[in-house]
């Protein structure tokens, strides 16, 4: 009895969380302009999405989002990994200070990060566009990479690297063959995390994107929603994004489970 009650409570919360997303997915399969009208099953919105030219501004916003996400995630991964190795080898006091600074972007609300970066760019007189958005994204993504690589360093056997050097490996070779394989899982989850944070970001992007007409998905949706109606093609797009995120999360989860199993074996 208790169990049924508990399960139905969880069930109803999940229904509340998923109802809006389900509605969007269901109504992505019909052509109606207004959400909530069902005018028969159709894949037209999906084909519109992939036909170049039908919704040029939407597809360019999507490309911008992906490109910005990939570049920021990649740079964050490199910067964050090098930083994590450096921070790990710092003296405790210096390490504490850097770790504190590393936590600032994570704890700061989006809008404060956004305004502070906006002020930085305007006071330097840098014109805003692609570069500023990417720099801004790197600045709030890298801390997460540091946090996901750092534990791998702590878990690692320090003597391995020294042993490689003693056996005649050059520092670079030892780095490539000993250190990197140990850090790789942390780097990959850092990359995925940075990528999802970047494509999901709205506020920081809005403040650093300038007014040259550059749009990412979230600024596009925002402008669209303020105009009143939502472009119907956003429905299939949201559905696709949702499914992609679902798949990505399952991959991360699977990796984590595998890693746990491996750790238990050791």
């Amino acid at each position, binding site marked *: 009895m208790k169990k049924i009650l508990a399960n139905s409570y*969880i069930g109803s*919360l999940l229904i*509340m*969380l*998923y*109802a*809006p*997303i389900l*509605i*969007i997915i269901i*109504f992505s399969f019909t052509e109606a302009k207004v959400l*909530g009208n069902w005018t028969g099953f159709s894949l037209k919105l999906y084909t519109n999405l992939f036909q170049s030219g039908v919704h040029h501004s939407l597809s360019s916003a999507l490309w911008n989002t992906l490109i910005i996400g990939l570049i920021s995630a990649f740079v964050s991964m490199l*910067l*964050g990994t090098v*930083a994590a*190795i*450096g*921070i790990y*080898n*710092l*003296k405790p006091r210096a390490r504490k200070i*850097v770790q504190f*600074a590393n936590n*600032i*972007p*994570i*704890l700061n*609300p*989006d*809008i*404060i*990060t956004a*305004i*502070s*970066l906006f*002020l*930085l760019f*305007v006071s330097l007189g840098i014109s805003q566009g692609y570069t500023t958005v990417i720099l801004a994204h*790197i*600045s709030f993504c*890298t801390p*997460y990479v*540091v*946090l*996901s690589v750092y534990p791998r360093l702590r878990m690692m056997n320090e003597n391995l690297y020294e042993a490689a050097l003693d056996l005649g490996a050059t*520092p670079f070779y030892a780095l490539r063959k000993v250190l990197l394989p140990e850090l790789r899982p942390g780097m990959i989850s850092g990359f995925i*995390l940075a990528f999802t944070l970047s494509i*999901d970001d*709205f*506020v920081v992007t809005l*403040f650093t994107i300038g007014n040259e007409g550059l749009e990412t*998905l*979230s600024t596009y*949706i925002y402008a669209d929603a303020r105009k009143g109606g939502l472009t119907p093609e*956003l429905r299939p797009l*949201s559905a696709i*994004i949702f499914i992609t995120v*679902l798949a990505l*999360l399952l991959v*991360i989860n699977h990796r984590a489970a595998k890693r746990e199993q491996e750790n238990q074996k050791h």
Partner: protein
Amino acid sequence: MKKSFLLFAGKRKNWSIPYIIFLGFFVVIPLLLIVFYAFSSRTGGFTLANFQKFWNQPEAMHTFIFSIGVAIITTVICLVLGYPAAYILSRMEAKTAKIMVLLFILPMWVNFLIRTLATVALFDFLRIPLGQGSLYFGMVYNFLPFMVYPIYNSLQKTDKSLIEAAQDLGATPRQVFLKTILPLSVPGIASGIMMVFMPVISTFAIAELLTINNIKLFGTTLQENIYNGMWNYGAALSLIMLILIGLTSLLNAEGNAKAAEEGGLL
């Protein structure tokens, strides 16, 4: 040249230097810029006028207090709904619980604008008018996972033998909960409150979309001032928000550090 570079790179603590420079330039200096702009006039001289303006302008002040109210109410609803959910999840079998928790976090990875618009669609679909009710629903909908996850984490990590000990010593189920389980989950509750309260208070765009621009929160006030070129006043308002957030996180320093250490949500 090459040799000196190798010497430099050979010391692995030096690897933190690029990131330290990066943090200084993109995190510390921008935050100092907020302080600098807040205390200067348009022409650049020192002034307190920006803060006086906030004090004397009922509108900004009113929005600020209203936003705090919305954040408190949202946090309380999330706590009341989320604690039982986290508790039930922590009692499930490990495998089921893992999937359930994933289901709870998953919606968070969909762009929050899309999620919010989906809520609006849901209300439209059910023919419920938009207003205060939809505002709170949308807020809770967006931030509930942030409450469930940390509480679940701390409940799941509690030492089961403590609970058994309480039972063996003759505590009633009610006493076990109030005297053992609840106190042990306080860190989780604290970081849950942080993770809901802070984003809600600084949220921007959600309220407008959920109430067709009828209700404005403080985040929007910040954005409007910056957009209308009132950088100094906007910076002063940001500083006020930063102070509020600083105070909240001081009250909650431990839960905070923990949340950061766990890499936020992954």
